């Protein structure tokens, strides 16, 4: 029981990374209606972009920005030159899921071919440890949590206080009506891919800072909790994704402390199933229901 509070603290670190990733993932879906299962692999590609910068002598936090920029540009180009072609041809949600799985495999194997099947680490210190009650955080973990908070606030401000954010929400709710109302939905979708791609990049680098080492499959292994967080919160609902990330992240660590590490994922997903049984649309979703009707 005395491990419960430290476990809660560790859960916050996992939840921070998960929140950044899940918000990016769900933002893509809400604005573009594409459930991008290549998201985890794009995280890995971003981690590699940051790795190249880091090993060229760039500080890890600048490298994180490199990863975010790479993610933004890569995601936007991926949508423009791959996904959008299928959307234009009227490919339905399920068909698009298959396309994203194909992209996922292509990215993973390209990374394998380029970087070879081995493991990589950043040159970065975790910094000193700080005790907050019985919770322990390194400077690097505190930085990750800080980045998560800033990213969530920025997403909130973007969606609620800017014209672009309002246009994104309008496009998410009803793209046809948004277009009829004079919103340049194609540009809004580009912007959504840029923003979500940047979040994807930040999450990829933060994940690797946490795991200390990575390979071409690291991001893909993290995709299931990302989807779980997004679905738990209500797919397409950024605030729901934040809440879902907190729930999944903390539940896993607390379960590991109270029951057994073997049940870490099990407990998190039992919570997911129970919540979805009670509230099938997720904790906060309105958009998801609207999307289902549209599909």
């Amino acid at each position, binding site marked *: 029981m*005395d*491990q419960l509070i*430290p*476990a809660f603290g*560790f859960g916050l*670190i*996992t939840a921070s*990374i998960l929140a950044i990733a899940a918000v990016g993932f769900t933002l893509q879906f809400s604005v573009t209606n594409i459930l991008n299962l290549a998201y985890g692999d794009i995280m890995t590609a971003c981690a590699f972009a940051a790795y190249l910068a880091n090993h060229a002598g760039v500080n890890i936090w600048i490298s994180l920005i490199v990863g975010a920029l790479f993610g933004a540009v890569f995601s936007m180009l991926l949508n423009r030159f791959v996904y959008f072609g299928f959307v234009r041809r009227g490919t339905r949600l399920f068909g698009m899921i298959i396309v994203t799985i194909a992209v996922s495999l292509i990215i993973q194997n390209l990374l*394998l071919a380029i970087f*070879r*099947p*081995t*493991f*990589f*680490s950043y040159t970065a210190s*975790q910094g000193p*440890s700080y005790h907050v009650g019985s919770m*322990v955080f*390194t400077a690097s973990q505190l930085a990750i949590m800080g980045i998560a908070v800033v990213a969530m606030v920025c997403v909130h401000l973007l969606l609620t206080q800017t014209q672009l954010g309002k246009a994104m929400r309008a496009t998410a709710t009803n793209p046809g009506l948004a277009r009829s109302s004079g919103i340049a939905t194609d540009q809004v979708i580009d912007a959504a891919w840029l923003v979500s791609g940047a979040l994807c990049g930040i999450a990829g680098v933060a*994940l690797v800072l*946490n*795991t*200390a*080492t*990575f*390979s071409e*499959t*690291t991001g893909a*292994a*993290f995709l299931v909790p990302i989807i779980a967080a997004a679905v738990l919160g209500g797919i397409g609902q950024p605030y729901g994704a934040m809440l879902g990330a907190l729930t999944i992240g903390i539940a*896993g*660590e*607390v379960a*590991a*402390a109270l029951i*057994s*590490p*073997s049940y*870490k*994922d099990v407990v998190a997903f039992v919570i997911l199933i129970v919540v979805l049984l009670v509230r099938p649309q997720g904790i906060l979703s309105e958009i998801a229901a609207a999307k289902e009707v549209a599909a």
Partner: protein
Amino acid sequence: MIDRLATSKLHASLAAGALLILAACGSNTPSATPKTYTGTLTFASFNPFTGPDASFGPEMAAGCIPAAKTINDAGGVLGHQVQCVAVDTRGDPADAVPAAQKMIATTQNLVGMNGPSSDEALATVPIIDRAHLPMFADSGQAAFDKSTYKYFYRLTPPDDAAGVAMAIYAYNKGYRRGAAVFGNDLSSQGNVPNLLSAFVKLGGQIVVNQTLTLDQSSYRTEVTALVAATPDVIFTEADPQTDAAYLSQLQQLHGMIPVVGTQPTVQPPWIKAVSGAIGRSTLSQNFAAAQPYSTSQGPAWEVYNTALLASGSAVPQPDQWSQDPYTETDYDAIIMMALAMLEAKTPDPSFYNAFIPKVVGNAAGATEVHSYKEGMDAIAAGKTINYVGAGGPVAFDQYQNSTGAFELIGYAANGSNPQLAVVSASDIAKLRQ
């Protein structure tokens, strides 16, 4: 009426089943005369090349390729050149079963193989055995200690013997409070039962036994539980990313505790991942691993190592496998199969399989040979041979297992693996369940 209907249905089902069994048996019954082969003969390296145990495959292929080179340099087998192909099982029975079926059905002139590993052995050994394909498994599963599969061979000790060797080493080093930290994959878990019982029998105490879900982003809660149990040694095997994350988080939260790992923890991907995460010097100060004992010297090893280093681009960084006992025995397996083909005068597996134990038989008057070329010349001269390979002498028991001692090796900051101790086969046997 219902009973009659049911009975007639049962009879029909039994008849259909019997026909299917007969058909299946018929398709797998060896013919009375050996098959004729044209072209290059193929050996498969049937192992994970992707997935959590992706390091197993390259380690195995690094044994096959120099073996094929030495065979081809000596003129081939019965007029055939030989080649190696890699078959990826992904370390998962669900992928390995179709991979085995496809390999058997579509690989031209497939005459033998290395593998499978522990990850997929239980699912695929029966399939491969039914296809009459000699296999030299690197599976460490104790289930094969008394294997009755006619085409199954194993030149390396089972995983549970590795667990005993780790326990003996740790106890002899003065550690009394052990923590078992193993991944939840089949390969890792195979070590655990005998490790736990051996350490307790010796007088130690297992203070915590953790089964890790692989590739999580955080193991801090597990690490906190481990630290609270105050172990003085950690026994481990998990995939590189899992152990790297776990040990780096241990280092952050507490500081490193001595680690005793299994053979996969001395493979280059594990070393690279973990040393990248915790630093080379920390690793070299705190790390030991048990692996099958191999002298890595002598005439057979010289031939192996020369061929390995001459493999060119076929084996990336070949020197990393120079002293790897699994790669050495994978090499030996190919040489043994080729020599058995010479003895049988055919590459047909159904015929040469019976000769495999004979090429390593230590019969009176047998000529000891250390390479394919030496063996080929001796057989041509009508001599009985005893192949002593790169991995040392081979002595099959009645279950076609040849196991031996273990060595504990460290990790030096310069990348070498100094020997720390040797645990004899008899000491291991006393403590195995």
